[in-house]
């Protein structure tokens, strides 16, 4: 019975926007980094957030990590709005439940301390009930979960390889008993041969520790390998979202189609769809209404220049924000 109910949302954003003011007093302009974004992350779920650089992926992660406040809109965690968490206790609790793992394992660990330092500090701050001996024991446990030998707690960061350091990052996050880990490009700085190990670790954290992960990446193939759902961002908007296999096999938004055709895949014949694209960046500074992808879109119609498309469900659980796909699904199909 309970299996048929939809999974409870762990975290939900509603119409979140984040604008940045740029320019000087003579030319005040607004950069719309994230514009009207709503999505949800369930329990025990890996959601991949993909898109080109500048599409707003990291801004979303920073809003969820409470580094930035949304310009408007609200983020709900376990049903509670983040803006209501004003006390130090609430904020500490939230940052323990939603920790972040960073892109660069070489600069995100303090080089002058042993690697246990970060893990123990997290434990001391967020789980004050533990004694010093229990903290050490817990640090050993999380190291084992992420595939590191507990002896490594005594090492210095320079003694570890990039892959091992990134595992330390996950161990630090895991020590706080998180519900959701925000992982911002956690494997992009690592060598190809060890990336898979980290992706397997993320799947293990989901399956065995019950942690949800927001996996931010520009690598669609790795997203498919590990994630349950995919959110494709373009110019601060969600272009398309849905179960990852469904999005990859039936992409409805022309941008998703362009993105997929550009993924290098030695097992596929060379596609020609991307060859005409000269990839101008979208205009996110003071944007006028209309679809921001229309300058690059082979299917753009008049409506696209006037009305900003909103997400609409086109297949079960699979939404796209595209006028053409919403009105005449046949045309999009012909394009793929």
């Amino acid at each position, binding site marked *: 019975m309970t299996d048929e109910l939809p999974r409870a949302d762990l975290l939900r954003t509603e119409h979140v926007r984040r604008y940045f003011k740029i320019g000087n007093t003579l030319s005040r302009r607004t950069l719309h980094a994230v514009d009207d974004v709503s999505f949800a992350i369930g329990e025990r779920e890996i959601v991949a957030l993909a898109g080109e650089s500048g599409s707003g992926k990291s801004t979303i992660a920073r809003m969820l990590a409470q580094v930035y406040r949304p310009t408007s809109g609200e983020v709900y965690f376990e049903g509670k709005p983040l803006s209501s968490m004003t006390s130090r206790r609430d904020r500490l609790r939230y940052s323990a439940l939603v920790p972040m793992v960073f892109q660069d394992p070489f600069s995100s660990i303090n080089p002058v301390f042993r690697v246990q330092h970060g893990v123990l500090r997290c434990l001391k701050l967020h789980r004050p009930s533990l004694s010093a001996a229990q903290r050490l024991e817990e640090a050993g446990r999380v190291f084992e979960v992420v595939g590191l030998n507990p002896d490594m707690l005594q090492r210095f960061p320079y003694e570890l390889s990039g*892959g091992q350091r990134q595992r330390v990052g996950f161990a630090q996050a895991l020590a706080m008993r998180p519900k959701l880990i925000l992982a911002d490009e956690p494997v992009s700085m690592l060598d190809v041969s060890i990336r898979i190990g980290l992706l397997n670790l993320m799947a293990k954290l989901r399956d065995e520790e019950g942690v949800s992960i927001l996996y931010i990446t520009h690598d669609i193939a790795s997203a498919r390998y590990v994630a349950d759902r995919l959110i494709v961002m373009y110019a601060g908007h969600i272009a398309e979202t849905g179960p990852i296999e469904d999005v990859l096999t039936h992409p409805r938004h022309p941008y998703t189609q362009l993105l997929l055709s550009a993924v290098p895949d030695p097992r596929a014949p060379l596609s020609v769809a991307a060859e005409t694209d000269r990839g101008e960046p979208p205009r996110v500074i003071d944007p006028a209404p209309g679809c921001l992808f229309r300058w690059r879109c082979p299917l753009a119609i008049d409506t696209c220049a006037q009305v900003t498309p909103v997400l609409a469900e086109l297949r079960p659980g699979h939404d796209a924000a595209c006028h053409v796909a919403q009105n005449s699904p046949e045309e999009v199909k012909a394009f793929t």
Partner: protein
Amino acid sequence: MLEVSGLSVDYILDRGNVRAVDDVSFTAGRGEFLGIVGESGCGKSTLLFAVAQLLAPPATVAAGTVTFEGTNLVGLTDEQLSAMRWRDMSLVMQSAMNALNPVKTIGAQFKDAMRAHGKFTGEEITARSAEVLKMVGIDPVHLRSYPFQLSGGMRQRSMIAMAMLFTPDLVIMDEPTSALDVVAQRSLMVQIKELQQAFGFAVIFVTHDMSLISHFSDRLLVMYAGQVAELGVTKEVFDRPLHPYTQGLLEAFPSIRGPRVPLKGIPGNPPDLSHVPSGCRFRPRCSYAIEKCAELEPDLYPMDGALVRCLRREDGSLAS
């Protein structure tokens, strides 16, 4: 046209010499696209710098020759090299963001490059600069733009335009696409290939991402721990990888097509070049390793038209 033979590069350090490139030989013919792949620290960038003779202390060429159009570049003075650099051989660096001068316009930087390697009038320089920018699909008005006014893809394309100023015979590229997203990356690769077909220059392309060059390179050189692990025709390396490391690399890439299969990657980490393992350097990470792999250092063996550094391929105990 380019023949690298027995090239070794040492980093001379207080704690002893580290051999970053060990006895590497390869050739690149006119109009050929040679891909070099390997993990970080495998010596691929050092190899490129040695080919371009750009090594700075503590790195020095310890042995071997780099013969480019009949001249051995090793040991030439900067003056002698300067006559051929940029005119016959140019280099596109990894990050255009850092390789372009942020306080000079694109046009001014093109002018510097042309003045440094020849005598030209102002009009000639402007005309040629506009021409090469058009070749890479950028509007010549951007000659007056500063690097920060261009997108990452445009910056990288203008670097390639700069390398085209003298229509060289050889263009060396060190991960030129690694800072770009996939869409810009693909269009840049297609553009490089188009230019190559139009002008017939050879390309040596270094990357850590094997799948990126699968459709573009003619031959593929796989480096591991400073040595050539495998060298063969790209398509055949992808269809029938001979070295266990190449196999592992290919299996480390998830695909967006076909069934979702669990992947293992390659266990362990690449070796520290100051303490290379005895015998075969890949042995500690290799699932096919046998006893003699720890004792004997494998040579590069010819096999099915390719070269592979694996003892078990040589004696035939590992079937393909």
